[in-house]
């Protein structure tokens, strides 16, 4: 990525919309009860400490980093499960593509099992599936990776709570203030309205914003279906007077 093209405008970040974002305390998701701050957050305008962030160059990436079907598989093998392509754009609140954004993603295998020391679900591990990948967005903010569709899995919350199939995303934009972790769900999954973690979202619009849509135009015949998932990061305020020469 070329720094000259990615220097954003100079204004501070637009405050995070706390009426749209989930609250810290959401009793239906039990773990939040003892892990949610109770004092008011201290609000301040962003400064250099939040308007800067590390640069992740495309040179960081290995050839298979964005191919979860193969990045952990033995030579000649591949992960088991429905083959999918996940693609989309990382945008800011003004609708501008965010180039050079680092995306890291992780997920359960097709049986709903994670490869983790503390995971105890009885579903089988897939020896050819690690469950993580990463990529960096192109100049227009676009990204794409290949994986298998994860399975739903049970988790200890209520006596019979199941997570919808989902992929976790960690997103690094151009300012530490934009730092975001979220999850992608799949259109049509009947577990979505039942899940207490989805249930912390405050509106159907917020649920829809995290639900990827099947895209038959990007689907590769006889190979992989495609799901589109756009991600929006906080934008930076811009005024005529604040614009720099290298701004937008």
């Amino acid at each position, binding site marked *: 990525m070329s720094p000259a093209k990615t220097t954003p405008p100079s204004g501070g970040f637009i405050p995070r919309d706390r009426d749209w974002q989930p609250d810290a305390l959401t009793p239906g998701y039990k773990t939040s009860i003892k892990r949610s701050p109770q004092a008011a957050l201290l609000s301040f305008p962003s400064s250099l400490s939040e308007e800067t962030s590390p640069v992740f160059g495309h040179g960081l990436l290995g050839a298979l980093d964005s191919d979860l079907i193969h990045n952990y598989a033995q030579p000649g093998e591949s992960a088991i499960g429905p083959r999918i392509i996940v693609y989309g754009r990382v945008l800011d609140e003004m609708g501008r593509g965010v180039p050079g954004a680092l995306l890291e993603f992780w997920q359960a295998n097709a049986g709903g099992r994670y490869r983790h020391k503390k995971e105890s679900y009885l579903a089988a591990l897939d020896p050819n599936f690690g469950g993580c990948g990463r990529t960096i967005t192109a100049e227009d903010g676009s990204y794409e990776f290949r994986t298998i569709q994860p399975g739903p899995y049970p988790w200890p919350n209520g006596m019979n709570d199941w997570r919808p199939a989902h992929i976790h995303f960690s997103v690094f934009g151009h300012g530490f203030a934009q730092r975001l972790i979220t999850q992608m769900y799949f259109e049509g999954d009947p577990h979505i309205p039942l899940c207490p973690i989805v249930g912390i979202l405050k509106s159907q619009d917020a649920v829809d914003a995290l639900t990827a849509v099947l895209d038959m135009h990007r689907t590769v015949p006889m190979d992989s279906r495609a799901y589109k998932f756009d991600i929006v*990061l906080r934008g930076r305020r811009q005024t005529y007077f604040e614009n720099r020469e290298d701004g937008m």
Partner: protein
Amino acid sequence: MVQKLDYLRESPSQTAGPYVHIGCTPNFTGIDLYGGDLGAVMKTGPVQGKEIVIRGIVFDGTGTPLRDAMIEIWQPDAAGLFASANETRGAADPNFTGWGRSPSDMTTGEFSFDTVKPGAVPWPDGRMQAPHITAWIVARGINIGLHTRIYFEDEAEANAADPILSRIEHQNRIQTLLAKREGDGVYRFDIHLQGPTETIFFDI
């Protein structure tokens, strides 16, 4: 009907869950990929300034350490310059990334950063801020990542003049933002999610 503002809404946050390490520090959880975990090393060669270690534990509202959290820090170099594409004031120390990522230990819950003491950075109005490190905490049960700042107890004069610290209403809570000196170059910064010593978290 009035005109519409056609802004997009930020993607809603969701918890990092119990397996954030698979995605962000896979080698830590035994998945051997990428040739190492991002953010594990902040110094890529000899660095300028005072080298320090910051250690801490994130505690929940019952006083129990979180053993599944991930903490990231972001800071300038010893001269106050960021290794960022958005840094316009000069070139930062080429051997210092400024960014660290640490999982909390699966047994003790301790996180740790091998870094340098940050230099001071100006506030938007030009006043100098006290040396500080920006920190971000995610974990199972945390619905949206928590921002806070690590200041230093041995910077009393700079802290007293800091634009943020001096405006905090409950001055008795400032202690929660101060890294405590444990030895030469070693600081402790525990994070309390709830309770009488709840850390000040920022909406910034």
